[in-house]
């Protein structure tokens, strides 16, 4: 075999996999290529030894003070609110649920009387909320369970929670919408549960990708202290019952949530 070229030696050193076995065999047998690889290593060691001077502890401050006067004021545009990925996801999820409810209603109903129509509208609205919030609570419970049950490995300095953080960010927008809707409908139990869930989701969403075990434990304590998992399960169970039982329509002016609140 020919001696290895400089390019091949560099690629081999960089971990290039193509033809690696052949090159390794050649290097085992060829002293000249071994020496060349050693010289290449010396070269890269010398390159590594080139120092980068310390710019000083307050370097970031210096950069900030230098650029901050030149940063233009950014005015939040109203459409930016709707173009943020998590909001688009939340709106898409709601639109899908509404469309589903519409088609279910359209293909299952017989010709209704006007009174029946009014009652059905209330039921459909209730059904949409039940399905959407049930789904939301299920996903929230899953994140909280994962975090509550996770433990740092022995000696682990940083824990990566970027996946949970991203999911919490997505859920946060939905949570606000459902909380406001529940509060408007007078559904106190659901509104208060979502209200307690919100700061916990906010904590997780605002965390860095990697956190220390102490920070992680603080999140776990917060989840445990509020008993939020139990509350979510209670509301979720209640929603399942509402979705599963075909209760007679409540008296006019008494929504199902008002009935529940009375109970």
């Amino acid at each position, binding site marked *: *075999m*020919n001696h290895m070229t400089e390019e091949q030696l560099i690629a081999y050193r960089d971990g290039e996999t193509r033809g690696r076995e052949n090159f390794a065999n050649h290097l085992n047998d060829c002293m000249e290529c071994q020496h060349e690889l050693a010289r290449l290593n010396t*070269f890269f060691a010398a390159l590594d030894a*080139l120092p980068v001077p310390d*710019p000083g502890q307050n370097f970031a401050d210096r950069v900030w003070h230098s*650029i901050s006067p030149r940063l233009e004021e950014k005015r939040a545009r109203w459409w930016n609110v709707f173009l943020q990925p998590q909001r688009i996801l939340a709106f898409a999820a709601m639109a899908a649920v509404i469309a589903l409810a519409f088609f279910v209603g359209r293909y299952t109903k017989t010709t209704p009387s006007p009174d029946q129509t009014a009652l059905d509208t209330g039921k459909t609205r209730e059904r949409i909320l039940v399905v959407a919030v049930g789904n939301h609570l299920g996903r929230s419970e899953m994140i909280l369970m994962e975090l509550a049950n996770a433990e740092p490995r022995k000696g682990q300095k940083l824990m990566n929670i970027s996946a949970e953080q991203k999911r919490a960010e997505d859920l946060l927008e939905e949570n606000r919408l459902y909380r406001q809707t529940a509060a408007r409908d007078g559904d106190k139990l659901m509104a208060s549960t979502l209200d307690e869930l919100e700061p916990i989701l906010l904590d997780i969403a605002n965390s860095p990708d990697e956190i220390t075990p102490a920070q992680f434990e603080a999140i776990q304590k917060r989840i445990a202290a509020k008993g939020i998992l139990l509350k979510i399960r209670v509301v979720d169970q209640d929603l399942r019952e509402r979705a599963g039982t075909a209760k007679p329509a409540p008296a006019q002016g008494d929504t199902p949530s008002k009935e529940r609140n009375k109970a």
Partner: protein
Amino acid sequence: MLSTAGTESLAVSDSLAVERTLAGDRDAYRVLVDRYSLYLYRLAYRMTGNSHDAEEVVQEAFLRAYQKLSQFAGNSNFGTWVYRIAANYSIDRIRQRNVEEARQAAPTRLNEDGSELDPVVLVKDPSASPERLASSSELAAKMKEALDDLTPAERTAIVMRHWEGCAIEEIAAVLKSNSNATKNTVFRAVAKLRKALEPFSEFRDTARAMGTES
């Protein structure tokens, strides 16, 4: 560092800082400046070869990133994105400097503190050991000089590949080139640097006849 009410202070995520900045909260951008300034400085110093230019690159990269923040739209990691901006601006800065230097008649090379390089330090030292060479000021000066003689693309390629450990595709994106051409640029940079170090005994033997039968 931003924190939420009632919690222990946890650093705000990059995407949230970007979102808040876009919503008009200029201080949220400071979180990103604090987080990535040093990271960019190391890259910029290795690319430009001096602290003054490196600091300018860092400032300019953050300014450009701020101006284009709405285009960033959270599609990738903010750190990676601002890193690319800094790498691109470093290339611009090197080219600009080369033009300025070409205009000036005096070709004297200066140390970072402004003093002239002593030509003696560039003379080979046949007795130098690899350990001593690696830490010697002679070698550092020669290496620095050789890096300065690379083209902006070669310098970018070797800095990003060797020091920053970037993938070839990532470097190709900055150089607006393809993977094969970028690999060749890295090889060319290594070959030039090794050639420049030939006066040092440990590097001299590199000009062996490659491709001959063993």
